[in-house]
């Protein structure tokens, strides 16, 4: 948690933590592992009542943030939900609302925003071809989005292709699909999940507490009004959205790391071997000290990325810095957590593997660690092909 929260933000954070402890502890996520939707709409609706879908949406549609800094407020939610691996397309629906709020026409806003904010509908983002967890370098011209869009005969669009790694893709109402336009630029389309030609396949997933689907669009015909931000043709808006996604995901990862770390410290104090708590052995103690360092680095990286996004300067670099640091040290932390737990940490019943799965998976989604390091090459002064 940040040390510089305002009073309102602290209240918002405490409310979130209490809600999750009561309504959706890790045991709740565990119960939903084999659930077809992967989340409970009733619990999701109560989360929406707490304002968790409002920070990036305009007030006209029920949106608004407690501090006036929407990304910072949403990062609080992401961190708290990371602590209990809260199931539900929360970040995805927030990102969809942010995209529509920023790029949408009046009709698109009127059609979707209030319902997204109130939790009546949910959304997911289908924008990855699977490689690097990102549509392509810069996500603009020449991006590899997996789906292509062609003008259809009735002045609409016909989308074909497959979007991979779509969180809750088989359960949401609205898909935000990244598709390559004839110009070569990636465009974002608002595709109701029940549109003709749209099918989803729920995949077997490494991360058990967040289902991923593969979305196939087989010559799916959409009206012209499905294209989001028709006036933006250079792909920079998609890039911005992806950066925002990676920042919020980093906040979620830090929450998961923090909770996993707390469990590990508690275990090291309680578990005894050779007549004393295992946390008294330097082999364990030093591991835990390293975990503190990795966690504090990760927290600082998220804070900087959130601040950069809210300030509107240097957000691309700060997000890639965070993904680089957290993509390296998050996995180190959860692997150590399993190790300190010993045999019990290798059992299905213990929660630590759920955190292991989430943190390792997040290191890949929204741009792999290597991918984000490559994005920083130009920043540190290497010649990069333009």
């Amino acid at each position: 948690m940040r040390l510089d929260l305002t009073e309102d933000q602290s209240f918002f954070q405490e409310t979130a933590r209490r809600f999750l402890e009561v309504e959706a502890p890790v045991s709740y996520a565990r119960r939903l592992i084999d659930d077809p939707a992967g989340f409970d709409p009733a619990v999701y609706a109560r989360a929406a009542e707490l304002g968790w879908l409002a920070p990036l949406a305009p007030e006209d549609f029920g949106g608004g943030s407690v501090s006036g800094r929407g990304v910072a407020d949403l990062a609080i939610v992401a961190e708290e939900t990371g602590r209990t691996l809260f199931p539900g397309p929360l970040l995805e629906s927030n990102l969809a609302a942010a995209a529509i709020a920023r790029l949408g026409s009046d009709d698109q806003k009127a059609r979707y925003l209030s319902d997204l904010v109130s939790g009546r509908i949910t959304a997911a983002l289908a924008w990855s071809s699977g490689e690097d967890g990102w549509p392509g370098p810069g996500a603009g011209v020449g991006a590899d989005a997996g789906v292509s869009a062609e003008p259809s005969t009735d002045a609409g669009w016909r989308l074909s292709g497959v979007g991979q790694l779509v969180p809750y893709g088989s359960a949401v109402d609205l898909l935000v699909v990244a598709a390559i336009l004839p110009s070569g630029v990636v465009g974002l389309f608002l595709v109701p999940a029940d549109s003709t030609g749209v099918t989803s396949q729920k995949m077997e997933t490494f991360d058990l507490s967040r289902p991923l689907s593969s979305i196939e669009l087989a010559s799916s015909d959409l009206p012209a009004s499905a294209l989001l931000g028709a006036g933006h043709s250079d792909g920079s808006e998609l890039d911005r959205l992806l950066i925002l996604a990676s920042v919020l995901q980093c906040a979620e990862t830090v929450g998961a790391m923090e909770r996993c770390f707390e469990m590990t410290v508690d275990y090291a104090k309680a578990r005894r071997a050779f007549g004393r708590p295992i946390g008294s052995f330097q082999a364990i103690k030093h591991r835990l000290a390293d975990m503190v360092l990795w966690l504090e680095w990760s927290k600082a990286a998220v804070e900087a990325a959130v601040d950069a996004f809210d300030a509107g300067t240097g957000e691309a670099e700060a997000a890639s810095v965070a993904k680089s640091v957290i993509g390296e040290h998050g996995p180190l932390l959860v692997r150590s957590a399993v190790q300190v737990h010993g045999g019990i940490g290798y059992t299905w019943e213990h929660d630590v593997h759920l955190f292991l799965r989430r943190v390792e998976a997040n290191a890949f989604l929204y741009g792999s660690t290597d991918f984000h390091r490559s994005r920083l090459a130009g920043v540190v002064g290497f010649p990069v092909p333009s």
Partner: protein
Amino acid sequence: MSDTLSRPESLADYRLRAREWLAANVEPLPRRSDGTVIVPDRSQPSDAELAEARAQQLVLHAAGWAGITYPEEYGGQGLSLEHEAVWQEESAGYDVPTQIFAVSQNILGPTLVAFGTHEQKLRHVPRILDGREIWLQLLSEPSGGSDLAGLLTRADRDGASYILNGQKTWSTGAAHADFALCPARTRWDVPKHRGITMFMVDMHSPGMDIRPIRQINGGAEFCEEFLTDVTVSADRVLGEENEGWRVARGMLEIEHSWVGRSGGGGTRRPTGVAELVSLAASRQLAGDPGIQRRVAALHALARTHDLMSVRVSKGIEDGRLSAGLSGILKLGADIVWQRRAELGLDLAGAAALAWSPEDQHGEWARHYLTSRSASIAGGSDEIQRNNVGEVALGLPREPSFDRDVPFDQVPHN
């Protein structure tokens, strides 16, 4: 009191004022062809360099650029850590005498401020800030560095004085220091932590024999000291008699926090990656995506460590985080430094194994060798991890064989 009523200067204005003053008053440092600054190594200053540094420090102090976070009462500026960071950023490209006074002003001075009497502070702190006095710490002993409280140097009361005998080692810059904080054992019949007293010792005292130690990097900025009947007046105790461990712990926390925040003075621990990019280019490796990613990862980590240091230092300062977390500031800084040095050695490759005398690649060999001290000096990384584990996380200590035993019954080296 009028200062508290006037509107505080914003950080941006402060930065501007620092920038203008530096440009008008200090020589810029030379730069390499790639624009990176060449920082002169003043770890073993000559007498002339020392005199020049002191003269320069007097000017800096008079202009208000010394003791930025020190209380105004003792010659400081009473400003925040952020102001200090701004000054460090702005002055990084200038020939200011940071290195010579680094330990004195960032570890010893703050320790005096925290534990000294008003008289002790008035007498020394202003002189530390304007460079008339250089202080160092005499902590490690040949019998052990990590087990600091197991020190063997003795101080025996003799009327209004103490007589110190023993040996210290690994002290930074002892050859040109004026005073030291030196813990010594005043009681032997109590457990080790309870019989130590912290003394303010004049390094020019009779009986103080200082000898340089040659290090693996070929340099000799560390010294060992032989104390033979060194007399210290009883009013030169910092804190109370037999309470020296508390002072030593406080001093170590100050040190770890500073090292983590600044990398230890900014001159000793370069963290930028511009030099690595130039090195990669000179070795025809700049287009290698794997190399690019390794350098980018280091950039990300170094930048994040700086941010984390500010976050955690402030958290400790306002009591929201455990002081035991100061260990991760140093631990992280050590990792960043060593990772940078290891990457430099990797990239330099053959050129760091053998180089012609006029070639710069020898820098990377020496930088690497110097970096090995990071995780040993100033409290080894293992000791930092113990502190983090025990103080910040509340993990139980390892069972020890000396903790509650009178020190004269403890076996030692």
